[in-house]
């Protein structure tokens, strides 16, 4: 317990009040008036308003699609990248540095960079695809709901893969070589040794990656803010962007907190579910 206490105390000292306050805010109607902030208790009023708000449902649907796809894509791509970089050909330091760069670029600059790349008129993606003959006319990548949401997804996957791949690479390096050797002796092919040796050993790491990525994908904000502002016509409004807009643009602090608390509840349930499903119990038993 002595090992854990300092961390818990630090977390409680910093986050306890803000978290409790945000839950309380969600139960109030808050207005800026008379040079001060007036607060009025309205119970679950913000939540009933929320559930009859079509924009909220639109954003919830967008978020569901976005985070499910993101978790799947990031996990699979990261695992693939980690396997590549763990292969004798991929062990050069060059690849490892390259892996980290997309994640290291400041998100603000990253989002603006992609805004230029994806621009419908002078973006380099259009220019490249035209010169390769893939498309004949400039495409408005961020102009239609489905395409815009998917491009947000691609950009977010691009910057999320590095860390998860790094995590998995570290995990791969912990798989004892003796296990592969044993599998080889038993006549297992590469695919079988991946299934029977690599994946089971990596289970804990993959579980962490999925849980963390779920948390992060439910709170994507900066990309939406720079690339689309939730548009066109709320097609790319994600829940966290909505929470931001309501809190900081509309100054409707109570309602914004209610949306944030919905995100919290969603994340909590999903993360608990994943931990329950994926966490390697047998290792715990061996303690």
């Amino acid at each position, binding site marked *: 317990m002595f090992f854990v206490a300092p961390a818990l105390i630090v977390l409680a000292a910093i986050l306890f009040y803000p978290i409790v306050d945000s839950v309380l805010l969600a139960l109030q109607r808050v207005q*800026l*008036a*008379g*040079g*001060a*902030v007036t607060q009025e208790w309205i119970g679950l009023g913000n939540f009933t308003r929320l559930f009859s708000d079509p924009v909220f449902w639109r954003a919830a649907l967008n978020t569901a699609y976005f985070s499910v796809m993101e978790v799947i894509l990031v996990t699979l791509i990261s695992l693939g990248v980690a396997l590549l970089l763990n292969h004798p050909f991929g062990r050069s330091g060059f690849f490892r540095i390259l892996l980290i760069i997309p994640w290291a670029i400041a998100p603000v600059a990253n989002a603006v960079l992609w*805004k230029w790349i994806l*621009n*419908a*008129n*002078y973006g380099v993606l259009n220019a490249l695809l035209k010169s390769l003959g893939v498309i004949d006319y*400039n495409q*408005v*990548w*961020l*102009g*239609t709901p489905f395409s*815009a949401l998917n491009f947000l997804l691609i950009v977010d996957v691009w910057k999320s893969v590095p860390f998860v791949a790094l995590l998995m690479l570290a995990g791969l390096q912990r798989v004892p070589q003796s296990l592969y050797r044993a599998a080889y002796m038993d006549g297992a092919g590469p695919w079988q040794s991946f299934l029977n040796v690599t994946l089971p050993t990596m289970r804990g790491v993959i579980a962490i990656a999925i849980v963390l990525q779920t948390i992060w994908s439910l709170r994507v904000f900066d990309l939406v803010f*720079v*690339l*689309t*502002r939730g*548009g*066109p*016509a*709320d097609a790319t409004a994600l829940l966290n962007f909505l929470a931001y*807009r309501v809190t*900081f*643009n*509309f*100054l*409707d*602090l109570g309602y914004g907190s209610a949306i944030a608390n919905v995100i919290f509840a969603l994340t909590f349930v999903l993360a608990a579910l994943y931990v329950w499903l994926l966490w390697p119990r047998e290792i715990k038993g061996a303690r």
Partner: protein
Amino acid sequence: MVHNFNRRQFLGTGALAGAMTTMPGWFEGGAKAQSAALNVFSPLPPDPAPPGAAKFSEEAFAKWQADNGATVAYETLAWPQLHDRMATAFASGAAPWDITYNCGWVPEFESFLTPYADNLPKALVDDLPATSFATTTVGGKRYGAVFTLSLLTLFYNKELMEQAGFKEAPKTWDEFKACAKEMTRDGRFGFVLNYGDPAGIGGTASYWMVFLQQAGGKVYGEDGMPAFKSDEGVAALQMMVDLMPSTDPGSISYAGINDATNVLLAGRAGMMMNWPFMWNAGNDPKQSQIVGKMTSAVLPAGLKGSASIDGTDAWTITKASKNQDKAQKLIEFYLDAEVQKRQVLDTGWLPIRLSVLADPEVQAKAPNAAVVLEQAKHPYDSFVTADYNQVTVAIGTEVQKALQGSKTAAQAIADAQDAVTAIVKRRG
């Protein structure tokens, strides 16, 4: 005045100004014992910024501080982040500023501001366009003074317009549509605008408000309730929809005006609405491929004549400020005729003082000043209210649906009116 000389030297280094605010005023002589530290919250250039934050009138600024026994510290931030930081500080009751920049947010933050502009000297007020106070007036009291005349006007590519067979800028909606249609060829478009972000001044809803006023409509009725579900409201949106075939299809995805500006600067769009800063950008050989080809004109007239909206860049004083008088003096200095003149000559942002706008030297350096002055003779209400952000998101989102063809103009306007009515009623 050795002391003052020292101070001026100090301030010349700029970065030390912040440190100065924490120093006791011990190098003030007896006569100037009341040293005041003024904290000013300002956008960063190239957005409109005051002397000291932007590079103009720096000597006059140092002299003003010395003469008035005041030290001014700027807290600067990129424009897109200003509102968030102000909102957080005000909502927490911990705003540290004496003077803040404001842009259509006066009704929203009114309770944290003082109506100092009612006390400005008459000579100064008489030299400002009366309508410039529209966006800073709440309940009959003036909370701010606009410091740059920033109205949307039409910017266009002369060369493309001549190729399309037009000798001068379109004067009416019909000419505008025809001209845009003719210019749309060879991978170029007649018109470009940023329709991606529904909210705020310069967002989709505010562009519709331009057309709305050209059609003779208003957003709110006398009772303060929305009143745009009208022929004018629908006609304005229909005009935008009619322009879509000649509009860069990327427009619906451009979230900032910079995205659209670049298309005009690349020579691949013929016309757009833009703010006065565009003049310098369009003639900068590093950014622009249409140097010398760009001109500005008054926006075309709808049923009721031309109209525009107001950028509303204003200075306000916070209630919490302990230096109300000095703060007002500083704003008066920002609006001083000579400072206003340097503002336009050195930064390109037009002055707000009519006398400076009429100055031949100013008109020579900023040929669009005359156009903006002309535009200012027509209506340019931005319809800012305490709910402005929320209202523009509601209207802008419906406008986007009509532009995408998923709703008719009439349907979108009807739905927008319902949404805005709900917002206004909730406010109570």
